[in-house]
């Protein structure tokens, strides 16, 4: 059983479309991190959200932490082929150990 449920598992879209990736749990997290991983490399941190209801923007990426700190979403506006990759959410249960979602493989076609 996955503590963090991430959906969808796969996304294949055209350049210019918008998309949202969801990360849900029944557990409360002290913080939640989003990572992006490209083939042949390790995951790289995109953002950390800490406060319930927090919204952070990184260019065309918008990250939201749920009010109850149990869920989060990543929204990409006007996706580009350079956004292609594996997106991972990871929750901190409070003692520094992260638990990861299953990941979302995003493919953006030109």
């Amino acid at each position, binding site marked *: 059983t*996955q503590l*963090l449920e*991430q959906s969808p*598992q796969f996304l294949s879209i055209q350049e210019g479309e918008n998309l949202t990736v969801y990360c849900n749990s029944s557990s409360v997290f*002290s*913080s939640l*991190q989003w*990572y992006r991983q490209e083939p*042949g*490399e*390790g*995951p*790289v*941190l995109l953002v*950390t959200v*800490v406060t319930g209801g927090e919204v952070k923007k990184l260019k065309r990426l918008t990250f939201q932490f749920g009010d109850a700190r149990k869920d989060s979403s990543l929204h990409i506006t006007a996706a580009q082929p350079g956004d292609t990759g594996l997106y*991972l959410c*990871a929750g*901190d249960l*409070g003692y*520094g*150990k*992260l*638990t*990861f*979602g*299953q*990941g979302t493989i995003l493919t953006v076609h030109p």
Partner: protein
Amino acid sequence: DVKVTQSSRYLVKRTGEKVFLECVQDMDHENMFWYRQDPGLGLRLIYFSYDVKMKEKGDIPEGYSVSREKKERFSLILESASTNQTSMYLCASSLQGASSPLHFGNGTRLTVT
């Protein structure tokens, strides 16, 4: 920039062999982690360490052990490799403290035949 270096990108081992995966970080991070990554399962924590000579089991420690004799180095050991340990292994490090981001190496793809 933090650099986490994993000694091998690809390894092929036979069933029953003892396998060592090495990881070194250069930023004096207290925490080090070993994850395995499998399609559809995300990253699963095998072992982690908050300090030298200290280790804690993660979610899937069975069949693995670790060693941290120096702060910068964290080794993952497969005592007797099995085919179900074929996977991508990722090492990471972080500072102590809440919400510290993980810095990952580029991974070791291990195949056990």
